[in-house]
Structures are given as structure tokens and as C-alpha cells.
């Protein structure tokens, strides 16, 4: 029996949708968001906090007011621009503190023995079951509302997630052979954590930070919508939605713009985080495809 080699022509399978599409869109949206916040320090269409009775409820595309004005005549574009600052301050602030605390606790849990691990992991489990919104309400009740309280509340309920993720990533690294050899060379635990573990989990840390930056913006908007987040003269997109609902009713276009801003920014950061995960952690690439 002789076989003939068939022309090897298997129909082309549709290629996997390019994963980096999410990275590109994420980067574009995020850079736009950061740029608007930076520009707001140098230029604003008008002061977003000073009422202007003559220019109340201007419709979108009015001269000098591209997206119109609110019930007190304050410019929407200016408010949105300053709101971007608040989102970054609170979202990134909360995520940063959680990153620092979560890294410390996660590394201790991973590297300092079974007892530390058990105590920290159980603690994280308990904290995770406390609704973040409720923590924020408690803090607002006792400390008064404001950006600082909001950041504190966010970091309090983001930290356990960071602890968990960083603990399991660090445990993965600590099982690698090069760690064993570093130990054999007599390297101390802190040296190993700083020089070997942290560089190897940096990707996980960046991804986690990005995703919780987004979650922080969502939560801040929610708290400010409830009136227990930031207060004027700071401006928050959530607060703008609350004011729109209180003063002019939800069917006004004023209830559109801040929501759209939140969606675009949060979507951008989430896409960026997912895209970075695919780039930084090839092991996860197939599954999240």
C-alpha cells in the first residue's frame, strides 16, 4: 500500500479575534481620560462652580457651552473636566493604598509561614464579605463625607482582593526553582521577596491596579450619587447625576453626559487591564481570549 501525500489544504479557520484590540482601545480611552484631567488644570471653559442665572439650562451645542449648562447655569464640559480629576484622585488613590497594603499582606501570607497565611487569608475572606458600599456609609456617618473618606473606604474594601491575588501570585513564584537556588545561596527572605518575587508579580500588580482603579471610579460615582462621596467645590460625575435628578429630572440630557463619561472611562480601564493581562501573563492568554 502506497499513500499519496494529499495536498495539505485544511480550510482556514477564522482567526482568533486579536486580543490586542482591547489593549489599543483601552490605551486610547485611558490616555484621553488622563489628558482631559491634566488639561483641566490649565484650561476650563468656565468656572464649574459659579452659578450663572442668565445661562441656565442651555441645550447642548450652545455657543460657549458645547454640552450646555445645568439648572444653575454652570457649564457641563467644565464640570465633566473637573470631575475627571476627582475620579483619578479617588479611584487611583483608593487602588494605590489597597495595592500597598495588599502587597504587604499578600507577601507576608505567602512567605511567612502557615500561621500568618491562615490568619491573613481568613481575615481577607471576612473583609471581602463586608459590602464596600456599607463600609463607606459607616465612614461617612462618623467622619463626614468627602474625597478623603471615600478614598479610605475604597482602600478598606479593595485591600482584601489585592491580598488574595498577590498572595497566590507570590506563592506561584516562590515555588519556582530559582527561588530554591536563591535560598541555597543563603539569600534572606526579604531579599528574595524584593529582588525575585516582586519583579515577577509586577504584571499581576499592574493589572490588578488598573481593574480596581476602574472599580474605584464606579464606587466613587455611586457614593457621590448617594450624597456621601465628594462634595462641592470638588465635582464628581456621580454628584452631577444626583444634581440632575434632584433639580431638572432624569429625562434631561444632563443625566446623559456624566453617565457616558463614567462608562467610557471605566470601560477603557477595564479593557486596558484585560489587554495588559494578556500581554503580561501569557499563561492566561488562551483562557481569557
Amino acid at each position, binding site marked *: 500500500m502506497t499513500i499519496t501525500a494529499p495536498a495539505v489544504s485544511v480550510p482556514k479557520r*477564522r482567526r*482568533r*479575534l486579536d486580543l490586542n484590540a482591547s489593549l489599543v482601545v483601552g490605551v486610547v480611552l485611558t490616555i484621553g481620560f488622563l489628558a482631559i484631567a491634566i488639561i483641566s488644570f490649565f484650561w476650563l471653559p468656565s468656572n464649574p462652580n459659579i452659578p450663572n442665572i442668565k445661562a441656565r439650562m442651555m441645550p447642548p451645542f450652545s455657543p460657549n457651552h458645547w454640552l450646555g449648562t445645568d439648572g444653575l447655569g454652570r457649564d457641563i464640559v467644565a464640570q465633566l473636566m473637573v470631575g475627571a480629576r476627582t475620579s483619578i484622585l479617588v479611584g487611583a488613590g483608593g487602588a494605590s493604598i489597597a495595592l500597598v497594603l495588599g502587597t504587604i499582606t499578600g507577601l507576608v501570607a505567602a512567605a511567612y509561614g502557615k500561621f500568618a497565611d491562615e490568619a491573613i487569608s*481568613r*481575615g481577607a*475572606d*471576612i*473583609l*471581602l*464579605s*463586608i*459590602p*464596600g*458600599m*456599607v*463600609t463607606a*456609609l*459607616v*465612614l*461617612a*456617618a*462618623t*467622619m463626614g463625607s468627602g474625597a478623603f473618606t471615600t478614598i479610605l473606604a475604597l482602600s478598606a474594601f479593595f485591600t482584601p482582593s489585592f491580598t488574595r491575588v498577590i498572595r497566590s501570585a507570590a506563592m506561584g513564584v516562590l515555588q519556582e526553582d530559582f527561588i530554591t537556588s536563591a535560598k541555597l545561596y543563603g539569600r534572606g527572605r526579604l531579599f528574595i521577596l524584593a529582588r525575585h518575587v516582586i519583579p515577577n508579580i509586577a504584571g499581576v500588580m499592574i493589572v490588578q491596579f488598573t481593574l480596581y482603579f*476602574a472599580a474605584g471610579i*464606579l*464606587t466613587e*460615582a*455611586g457614593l457621590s*450619587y*448617594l*450624597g*456621601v462621596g465628594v462634595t462641592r467645590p470638588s465635582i464628581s460625575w*456621580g454628584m452631577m*447625576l444626583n444634581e440632575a*435628578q434632584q433639580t431638572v*429630572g*432624569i*429625562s434631561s440630557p444632563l*443625566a446623559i453626559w456624566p*453617565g457616558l463619561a*463614567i*462608562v*467610557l472611562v*471605566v*470601560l477603557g480601564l*477595564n*479593557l486596558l487591564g*484585560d489587554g495588559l493581562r494578556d500581554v503580561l501573563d501569557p499563561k492566561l492568554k488562551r*483562557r*481569557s*481570549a
Partner: protein
Amino acid sequence: MALYALRKLVFFIGAVFVASVAIFLLIRAAGGNVAAIVLGKDATADAINALATAYGLDRPLPVQYFDWILGMLQGDLGQSFRTKEAVADLVVGRLSVSIPLALSGLLLGLIIAIPVGTYAARNVGKPSGAVLALISQIGIAIPVFWAGILLSVLFGVRLGWLPTGGWVDWSDDWVGSIRSLVLPVLSLGLIMAAVLIRYVRSAVLDVMNQDYVRTARAVGMTRTQALLQVGLRNAALPIVTIVGLQIAELIGGTVIIEMVFSLPGLSRMILANVAAREVIVVQSTVMLIIVFVIFVNFVVDLLYGILDPRIRNAA
């Protein structure tokens, strides 16, 4: 199984204890003098001391803590400083709004997410799967209160089909109650679904690539049968875990949605008391919510033990 359940029960009690200490300390440490908070900035020192003495707020913290916890265990949640109403009475009426809202929202989220997430997993790499993944991504980015606003603009203001807010008590007109709940539940459920679709999709995707699904096909199941009979049963384990973790999110969503639709639920009461600086009311109500969430997680753990023989035996 009994040993496993016992371990989880111990963890449940431990968690409630730790959470109660955390809440108590958070309020005392962050707020300082409770009596001063309650009375506000203009209060005189005498008035503050009088209130502190009257409510035992000048006693050592451990004594105050155990007093509070023992009261909670006997159903005494404390009382409002101003109206003197018992917190328990304040809470009970509100639950008939909050519980149906939260549970229906979760249920709707699951009813949408399980089939859609499974479908997305089966069509990974195809346009339909990619579109679903994108819709889910966008859904995650939508704040639940904005979803509520958009839905009430569409169905309440423009179409006029459903109320944009307000509440009729169940005993007065239960159809009206349900009509009031439709949009809030829809908002909550759709946003929950967006989050859950992602997890269901990745759980199903993970399970689909497992050897045992291939074995199921190797002994005579079709692709679909293997996915539904073997795959979903195994995917239930990670999905149940995620639902447990999402309960905290669900509570947060419920708090906000009650505000969007002006529903007289638990969160309106908490917010009013936050504004009025009724520290004890907030403390006790929040503790109740947290106990509820921890309890749901306890139930989830038990369910997990029933679903997975490996976990059941490992304990």
C-alpha cells in the same frame, strides 16, 4: 460532610465576631466621641456628657461592645437617639422592600448570565462570542444607578409604562408594589448579569477543556449533552463561589437602586440616619446587613460541599 459543615459554622461565627469588632472599632476610632457626633458641632460639653452618661457611652469600650452584642443577640438593636424608636422596628418594615429587590435582582442576573455566558463560551473566537463579550464589558462599566436612570427615562418617562419611583405597600396593592419593583429589579439584574456573564463564560470555557468532558463525549454524549450534563454541573462550583462573592456587590447595588427609584428600603433608612448622625442606628443596621452577607456565604460554602465531593471529604 458533618465535619465540613462544622468547620464552616465555626468560620461563620468567627467571621461575624471579627466583623462586629471591626464595625464597632471603625465607628469609635474614626468618629471619636459618639455623643459629640450625635449632637453636632454646636453642642455644649454638658449636653454631650449628659447624653454619654444616659446611653452608657462613657463606659470602657469592651463593656460597650459586649453590651451592644448581647443586645443584638437578644434582638435588641438599640434605639434612635432622637426619636427613641427601636432600631428593630425601623428595620423590619424596610425589609419587605429591600429583600424582594435584592433577591429578584440576583435571580434575574443568574437567569440571564448562565445561558448567555454558556453560549458565549461555546462561541469563543466567533463574532457572536466576541459581541457578547463586548456587551458584557460595557455592562460592567455602566454604573447601576445610571442604568436605573436610563431605564426609568425610557419605560417611565418616554413610554409611561411603569412608575419612575415611589412605592405602594404590599398590603395596599401588591400589583402596584410589583410594578414599582420592575424597573429597579431590571436595573440591578442587568448589571449583575453583565458581571456574571464574564465569570460564567470563563468557568464554562475552563470546564469545556477538561479531560472529563472529552471522556463524556468518548463514551457517547454529543457535544451539547457533554456540556450540559457534565460541563455545567462542574462549572456550577466556580459559579456558586462567584455568586457568594457578588452578594456584597448586590447589597451595594441595592442601596443605590433604592435611592434612584425612591424606594423606602433599608438603604434610605441608613442614609437618612447617616445624615442625622444616628450612630447607633447605622452601626446596628450595618451589622445586620453584614451578618446577612456572611450568612449567605456560609450557605454558599455548604452548597459547595454538597456539589463537590472532593471538598466534602477533604475537610
